[in-house]
Structure formats: C-alpha cells, structure tokens
C-alpha cells in the first residue's frame, strides 16, 4: 500500500516536472537558450484557466484554449523581448532577463488575481478511485499519460516533419538554415511559444490537485530545470524520464525515510547521476568547434 501510493504520487508529480522540462528542452535544442520563467508560465496557465472557467464561467474547452493561447503569446513576448535582444549580441543576459520576466509576471498576477490561493474544481479530482487499495484521482493518472504523449509528439515532430527538421537545422547551422530559406526567427519564436504552452498545460493539470496562486510556479520551475539537466536537456525522452524518476524518488523517499530526507536524497541523486553521466541520462554532448 505504501509503495503503490508513493508510485501514484511520484508518477503524477514527476510527469508534471517532465512537461515543464520539455519546455526547457524545446527552446534549448532550437536556440541554445532556455526560458527561466517556465514556472511563472505554468502559473499563468493555471490562473488564466481559473479566471476563464471559474470566475467568468466560460465552458471548460474554451477556457483552456484561451488560457493556452495567452501562454503562447507570453512565450512569444519572452523570446522577442527577453531573449532575442541579448542572444543576437552574443550575450548571456537572457538568463537574468527571463528570471526577471518571471518575477514581474508573478507580481502582476499577485496584484490583479489577489493574494489568496483559490481552488480549481474539476470532476477529475473529486471522487477518488481505488487502485490496488489506494485512492487516486483520475487526474493523477492522466498527467503521466499527457507527459508521455507530449514527449512522443515532440520527438516525432522534430524527427519526422519538415517543420521539425527545420528546427533541428536552425540550431545546428543557423546561417546555413537561413540560406536554405528557413525562417530562423519564426522557428525560434515558435519554440518559445510551444514551451510556454507546455508549461500552461502542466499548470492546468496540476491546479485541481493543488491550488491556484501567483507564487505556485516558483518551486516547480526550479525542480523542472533540475530534471531537464538530469535527463539531458537535448533529449525529449530524457527530460520526461528524468521528471518521472525525480518524482518517484521524492515520493518513495518521503514514504520510506520520512519527509525530512526528501530534498537531501532527491538532489543528491541529481549530483551523483550528473557526476557519472555529465550529459544527463539520455543527453548527447554537443560538439564544439575550436
């Protein structure tokens, strides 16, 4: 019972870290940059979903679509104003700019949405179902499915479609890609939009299990980046796998050793794995010309 309950909890949480980490992956493989406001993008998805579906009473599919559209727009804004101006000049200041963008968004939401956390009701997180004698909400089982599905779709898109190949070309030889008629600016902007949509999906999925507040994304964003590095940020499968692994280690440590040891064990595991496999679980070393 202890192990079943820990596995259900761990896979649900882990898949959510994986979804956020996929957002780090997609922008990294296309532009060698990441959006450190992923946690805030996740919060934005949840807050907008709550506002449209609960406060304004819109039908859920429309509320979700509207929330994710705004998340995509946020991704475009991040790329255009917080990443491109710095990356174009060869500066790494986008690191701080995206962190600052997330803090600004958190505070704007704090003032507009309010200070108190809210409950996001969902029929998928109301009645628990029994799995091997352990209660679980259907939503907890859906999150890993969505995480794995997102990894499959991203891998297929990158490897099999013309658009995906264009994306890969952009990161390998941006100038050559441009000469071949690929709109590199568009491809990079689209990658940022996809990354914030993935974060928005994670926010919408976790909101009914947790609560909705302006500060909800901070810790998730940090853990997701840790799992992105653990999995190997160049591999979609790697980051999702690492997310699941991290979630499981957290839940199993809490269940068997107690919550005082959870962060010690989980982050020690990351250090040990990276020591043995510096490119992460499934990542590849990038060749650098000197």
């Amino acid at each position, binding site marked *: 019972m202890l192990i079943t309950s820990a596995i259900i909890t761990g896979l649900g949480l882990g898949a959510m870290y994986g979804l956020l980490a996929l957002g780090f992956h997609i922008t990294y493989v296309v532009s060698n940059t990441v959006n450190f406001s992923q946690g805030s993008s996740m919060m934005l998805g949840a807050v907008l979903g709550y506002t449209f579906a609960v406060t304004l009473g819109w039908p859920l599919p429309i509320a979700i679509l509207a929330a994710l559209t705004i998340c995509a727009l946020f991704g475009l804004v991040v790329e255009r104003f917080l990443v491109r101006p710095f990356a174009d000049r060869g500066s790494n200041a986008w690191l701080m700019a995206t962190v600052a963008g997330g803090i600004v968004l958190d505070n704007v939401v704090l003032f507009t949405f309010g200070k108190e956390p809210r409950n996001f009701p969902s029929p998928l997180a109301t009645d628990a179902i029994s799995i091997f004698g352990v209660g679980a909400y259907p939503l907890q089982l859906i999150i890993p499915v969505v995480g794995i599905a997102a990894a499959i779709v991203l891998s297929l898109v990158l490897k099999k479609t013309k658009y995906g190949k264009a994306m890969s070309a952009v990161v390998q030889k941006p100038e050559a890609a441009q000469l071949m008629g690929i709109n590199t600016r568009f491809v990079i902007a689209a990658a940022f939009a996809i990354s914030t949509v993935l974060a928005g999906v994670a926010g919408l999925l976790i909101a009914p299990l947790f609560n909705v507040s302006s500060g909800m994304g901070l*810790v998730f964003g940090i853990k997701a980046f840790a799992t992105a590095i653990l999995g190997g940020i160049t591999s979609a499968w790697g980051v999702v796998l690492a997310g699941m692994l991290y979630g499981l280690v957290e839940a199993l440590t809490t269940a068997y050793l107690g919550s005082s040891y959870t962060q010690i064990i989980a982050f020690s595991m990351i250090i040990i794995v990276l020591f043995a496999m510096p490119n992460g679980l499934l990542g590849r070393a990038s060749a650098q010309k000197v």
Partner: protein
Amino acid sequence: MNIQMKSRISRRSLLAGAAVATVTAFSCLSAFAAETVKIGLIASLSGPSAKSGEAITRGLTIAIDEINAAGGLLGKQVELIRRDDEANPGKGLVAARELIQREKVAVLFGGLQTPVSLAIVPFMNQIKKPFMGPWAAGTPITKNGAKENYIFRVSAFDAMVDVALVDWAMKVHGAKKPGMMLINNPWGESNQKGLESAMKAKGLASAGIEKIEGSDVDVVPQLTRLKSNGADTIFMVANVGPSAQVMKSLERMGWDVPVVSHWGPAGGRFSELGGPRAKDVEMIQTFTFSGNDSPGAAEMMAKLKKRFPEIKSEADVTPAVGIANAYDGMHLSALAIKNAGSTDGPAVRNGFYAIKKHVGLIKTYVNPFSAEQHDGLGPEDLVFTRFIDGKIIPIK
C-alpha cells in the same frame, strides 16, 4: 552710509525674525506632537499576510475610538501610527527604531509573524519601551530571557496551544498515539518542541513527525507513514495552503482520522481549498464572532460594521482573533499608561503589572500581568472551532 546701515540692520532683523519664526514653528509642532499619545503598529500591511495587518488595525482603531470618546489618555487624544514590515524581520526592526526614536510612540504593537516580532524584541528591551503582541504565537517572544522584560502579549502562544491540542485530542478523541504534520519552517519547529513536550508530560506515544512544504501538491506519502505507524489523531501546524493539501490528501486516502490543529487554517478560503474534509479540522482560536452569545461580541460587530462599511457579515472578519486580541491589547495598554501617569517606558511596564481588573472582549482580565507573567491569555481562554462555509464556529 546711512542707507548701508539701514540695510544691515534690516538684514539682521530679517535673520533674527527668521530664527524666531523657526523656533516658534518648531515649538508649535512639538506642542502639536505632544498633544497626542502615539501608539505604534508594525505589521504586514501588504503582501500575502496583509489581511492580518488589516485585522489588527481594525481592533486597534475601535479601541482607540472608544478611548478618545472617553477623553483620551493623560488628557490627550490617542493616535495610531502604522508601518508595514512586509513580513520581513529587518524591515520590522528598522520601522521599530523609527517609531520609537522619531515618533516617540508610547507602546508598540506587533503583527502576525513570529520572526518579525523576535527581531524587534531585543531592541524594545534594550530601549525600555513596552511592546504588545496581538498575534504572533512564538513562545520566545514573551519568554525571551531578558532581565528587564518589556514584552507583553494578548494572544495564544505555541507552548500553551500545544498543551491544549494534546489535552483536546486525549479528552475528545481518546488519542493514544498521535502523529504530527508540521510545516517545514521555524513555526513548525517551535510547535514540534511544544507538542513533544506536551505529549511526554501526558505519557503519549508518537506515531511520527512529518514535514510539509508550501509547494507540496500531495502529502499522501507523509500521511501513509503516519497511518502505518498507527496514528490515531493528527496534530497539524501549517498555514492555509498546506493545511488544505493535508485535508485533500486525507480525503483521497479515505482515512477518517481526527485532525486537531493550530490556528493556521483560519484564513478566508480554507473551506474552499480544503475540499469536503475541511470542515472536520478542529482548530484553536482565542475568539470568534460566530456562535458567540456574549453582548460584547454583538456590540463589537456592530461597531466594526459602522466604522468599516466594507464589513457586511462575520465572514468579512475571519479570522477574528487579530481584531479581538488587538482590541483587548489596546485597552490593557491604555490602562497601563493611565496607571503610569506618563508614557515613560519603565513606568508603563509597571502600569501593566498594576492592572487589577478589565472587562475585555475575550474575557475579564484579573491581574493579567506580573513580572513573571507577560502573557495575558491562558489555556482556559482557547476555543476549539471548525471552519464551515467561510465561518469559524466554536465546537460546543
């Protein structure tokens, strides 16, 4: 030459006139400043804990209105001066220096956060000015080990709450092996010590101590550990968000275990956030408006509605402890100043000790303070409540 002389005299006169005018203006300002007795408040007036600062302000305002209507203190009107600590101990200490040294407040009130109060306490004892705690429950705030202690409190404090939680669990639920779910911060640690000590005193076994983080989505693993260790009651110490996650996780597990809690869940939206099990939490308070038949409570509610038109019902003053503690704390401070006959710090401290009897909102205080006793409330003043539909209702 004559003209020059005239001009020189005239300039001198001008300078002298300006000096006289400046001195007069400052004298007038000082006279105006001396016309009020100032009471300071350092609390969270912005950010996620802003509601606590608002509650304390409301309680103090009603009490000060009553004191002023009855002629003020020492023949002067009473004035409240507030500063925002932003829940930051450093900012709280800077504000305390400013209010004491520049504004010359007679008594300084604190806010909700124990770390902020703990940062201010040594300064107040050093400068010998009274501090009144209307909310922060950290035991060392009043029991601070200072030779000359200027810190008073009208609120629950952790060591007392923990004894009450253990007594309640044993009396009402027949608890023999409780487990703890504690927030992973200094407040949780303070209560861990208090609960361990209270359980030891009663000879109770422990089913374990589990920590929760504000970001924990799911605390089933922690609860499952306590359940496997045979916990028959849960002691919960956490604020609204994590407490709600505990109740949601219990609902998911289908574990119908009694939950006896500190006052953390007493935020406005706990009923909504905690799901169907939120109403099962038995939580400690010092005062409630709901289910309170005392004429004082009804009168206070009427005054609050009149003074603050945004208050429409009891749900708008949840939790009421901040209001009630601050209201009683202000009246007791006024009595101390009256007893002292001045706003001199050591005299006001002795004024607190000299209070014989005061009919307050929470209770009738009889010799509430002494050199050994700086907490105005005791275990008998705690009320166990449930949070139902946005209202905190006492358990009969």
